[in-house]
């Protein structure tokens, strides 16, 4: 399963989770089976005026990720993720690595 993780910096698995979800600085795609980072991309929607939550949501749908890890999403991102049945795990004040560990411990 591929996971979408919204992070603050491009620092690999030790990147901190960004405290803004749809407007996070970087988007990481992580393979939960092979435990590897598939990609880290700069969030090009970050400075959009309106509807960034929907734009990020659409991007996640297209990425094919079934799990999303990040800070509490805004209402628009949340509505897109809910409608698309994508699992959302809220993680704050930790690194991507810690967030994945917490998610697994919970599951």
């Amino acid at each position, binding site marked *: 399963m591929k996971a979408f993780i919204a992070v603050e910096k491009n620092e690999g698995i030790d990147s901190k989770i960004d405290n803004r979800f749809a407007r996070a600085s970087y988007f990481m795609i992580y393979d939960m089976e092979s435990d590897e980072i598939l990609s880290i991309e700069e969030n090009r929607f970050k400075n*959009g005026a*309106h*509807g*960034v939550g*929907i*734009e990020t*949501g*659409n991007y996640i*749908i*297209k990425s094919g990720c079934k799990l999303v890890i990040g800070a509490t999403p805004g209402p*628009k991102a949340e*509505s*897109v993720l809910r*409608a*698309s*049945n994508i699992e959302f795990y809220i993680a704050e004040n930790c690194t991507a690595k810690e967030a994945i560990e917490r998610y697994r411990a919970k599951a």
Partner: protein
Amino acid sequence: MFIAVASGKGGTGKTIVSTSLALVAKKCTYIDLDVEEPNGHILLKPEIEKEVPFNLKIPKIDEHVCTFCGKCADACVYNAISIIPNLKKALFYPDLCHSCGHCTYVCPVNGAMEEVYREIGKIRLGISKDIKFIEGRIDVGVISGVPIISWIVNNYIDFNEINIVDSAPGTSCPVVESVKKSDYIMLVTEPTPFGLSDLKLAVEIVKNMGKKAGIIVNKDRGKNIIDDYAKTVNIPILLKIPYSIEIQESYSKGIPLVEAMPEMKGKFGELIDKIICENGKN
């Protein structure tokens, strides 16, 4: 003749000035284009004769016909559409839609998308003594007042008559749309650092648009920071409304300035005659 009353800063007295101008001009049209919070009616107390709903076109997606290709969502620069192909869902967010029509234009599937109307506000038409009253008003939460402003300017204004437009504060699209077709802009400000700072922004708009303009200083207490600035940008100070408790009291009771202070009536009368004489086409 189209006189627009604008300001950078809110609360400087645009409505006091524009209603005063309308009351001294007598046979004229007063148009409230501060569509998010129109309140000229409080001072002019018009008799409303007609209320016209204002609609915008929005897309309607038929999920039974849609192939969920996502072309509409990709085309939407306002991110108002979300397509979830695997679940065959199409989400539409009307509050983000700017009614550009791009989505229906790019949709390759016949019958999957059509344009329907969504009411976003109302245009109220009425009369107050000899003044024709027009007001635009958008519903709470509507993303932009520009479409209703542009519709009113293009369909309700008779440019051969005297029109006084009360615009929104600020310096963004609704203000630009309100003053775009004006012959003259009156910028209302107050002699405070806040008034001056925002006046400078409003002057930038005026200069950018190549419009003729003058400044009205409200709550004036003698020589002030606006005087010096006006000289440097070469914009005349048309009128100063004194800082006075009587004006504040009459305003708080909903009495127009020119009715509460007869001496102001003469001053506004001279002002509008001068502006029409120097800038009017008719």
